[in-house]
């Protein structure tokens, strides 16, 4: 259950020695039940695919220390329950101080794609709008035969919300290690992209722009820029 490989490397040392403090990027992962949120976060933090995943009750939390441009950064992933009743009254606590949002849908399940506007709205209610880096992940692209959400439709949706789109698979057909490098690297790439984005954008997030009109247009610019420059991988 615990993601042992990723359990807080060096957290005690950090507590003992004050500065330089490791920066923490908090990323919340949301989407319908069964789309693979736990798989994705586990894959990124533990470096391997989980044997089996179960329903997430409430929220679960995973962490990994990465190095970006010589700076050590902690990436905290908050894996949330998909069932609506949990997010309505339970999960709000965890939306606080979030730096980025990863929306996940299952591209073999059209309903999970149709729920995305509700999830986006949910984030807005917790003040996580376009000023916060957000990305869209279509999971389970290994199941090519049962795809229900085409890349073009998803791309259109992502564009309209100024988000980059990734299509990936958190499933490893060859269980451990070796195997399918392309997909494995992709999960890695998704979260690292967000981390890079946050690192470059951090001052923006910290110092909130005063005028709302400016912040809106800037949000759009940032988003538009993001979807161009982040690229849209598909596997």
């Amino acid at each position, binding site marked *: 259950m615990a993601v042992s490989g990723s359990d807080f490397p060096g957290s005690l040392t950090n507590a003992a020695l004050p500065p330089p403090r490791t920066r923490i990027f908090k990323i919340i992962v949301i989407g319908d039940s069964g789309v693979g949120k736990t798989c994705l976060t586990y894959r990124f933090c533990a470096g391997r695919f989980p044997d089996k995943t179960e*329903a997430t009750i409430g929220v679960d939390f995973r962490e990994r220390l990465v190095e970006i441009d010589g700076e050590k950064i902690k990436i905290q992933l908050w894996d949330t329950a998909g069932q609506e009743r949990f997010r309505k009254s339970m999960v709000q606590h965890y939306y606080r101080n979030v730096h980025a949002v990863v929306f996940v849908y299952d591209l073999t399940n059209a309903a999970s794609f149709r729920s995305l506007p509700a999830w986006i709205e949910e984030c807005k209610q917790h003040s996580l709008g376009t000023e916060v880096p957000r990305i869209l992940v279509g999971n389970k692209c290994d199941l090519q035969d049962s795809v229900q959400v085409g890349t073009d439709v998803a791309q259109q949706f992502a564009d309209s919300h100024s988000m980059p789109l990734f299509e990936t698979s958190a499933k490893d057909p060859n269980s451990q290690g070796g195997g399918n490098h392309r997909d494995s690297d992709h999960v890695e790439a998704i979260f690292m992209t967000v981390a890079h984005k946050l690192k470059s954008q951090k001052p923006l997030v910290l110092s909130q722009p005063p005028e709302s009109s400016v912040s809106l247009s800037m949000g759009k610019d940032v988003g538009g820029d993001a979807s161009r420059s982040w690229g849209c991988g598909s596997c």
Partner: protein
Amino acid sequence: CTVWLYRLAVSSRCSVSLYRLSLLSGCSVSLDPVDIQALRRAAATRGGLLNNEMRRKVWPKLLNINVFDLPHRPGRNGREKHTDFQQVVLDVKRSMKRFPKGMPAAERDALQEQLIDIILEVLKRNSQLHYYQGYHDVAVTLLLVVGERMAMAMLEKLSNHHLRDFMDTTMDSTKHILNYLMPILEQVDAELHDFMTRAEVGTIFALSWLITWFGHVLSEFKHTLRLYDFFLASHPLMPIYLAATIVLHREQEVKQTECDMAMVHHLLAHIPEDLPFELLIGRAQGLFDCFPPPLLAKQAALQSRNSLSISSFQAFQLSTLHQRPDSVLQPGDDGELWRQGNRIVKVAVWGLSATLGAAVFAVAQTAMDWGPEAFLQLF
């Protein structure tokens, strides 16, 4: 008061277990009326109900279920029309860990289908109840011990009492129940309470403990069963008291962690495999006796909210007082059915036992610790 009760729980366990063994050897179940108080004590004190044979006898009595009047096996027609069908199937199919390792896939598949059936049937019969993720963890625990029809009867009873608050349309009542956790900690260890308050950790780390009676987080099924003995015999808030004892038990670890929401949440959410459950159960009971729910609610100025689980508990307990023993309950054809069903369950459980030899050995050994006479009385 707490310390005194802790000591009492620890020092008296030998005599209590001997007493319990004599109760379990049959007399409490066959008295007329059934000695429900004795059964509750047996289920809650050290060792619990010992084995699944006992559980099949005692669990129904703890919930006032007539074993000769069980609901019929649910039909599969139209089950996919239920609004929660997709969610239930999704959760049940993913719950492979709940089934014993080594169980043949076909057997597990059949049990998973039964699990979907009983959950949907209970929901269908009780439109006031709403499915939550984790409900399937409760259902599977019952199913693996008592079989399909009895599991359905027990699940229905629990859903209308102990689990009732979790099954509202929203989780607001569940949040209210979770709010009892911090006041208990405050009473026992103010320093720990302050630390957790400063970390703003909240109480969601204990959510799955509460709503699945720890079934979702424990990997050893024997521990889950032991806790179910305790909770079936206790007040609906008892899982919160046990949650508090677990946090208190890990007090040192918690205080040494960085005072940060994520860190503390992560530490607490992952339960160590080797918790001394018997000790913790004794302590939870001690805490409950020292700080009963009304006292906590008053001291902590918990917002008053109508909890259906709590408000219906007294009536529920009263209803269990006048149960007739099975021998008087006039076993008719239905009784035969239950016994047959029971036999099938037994075969299944012995099948599991073969693969889980170590668990059986552990139970036998625990019984042996109390002396061979007691052991012989049992089997």
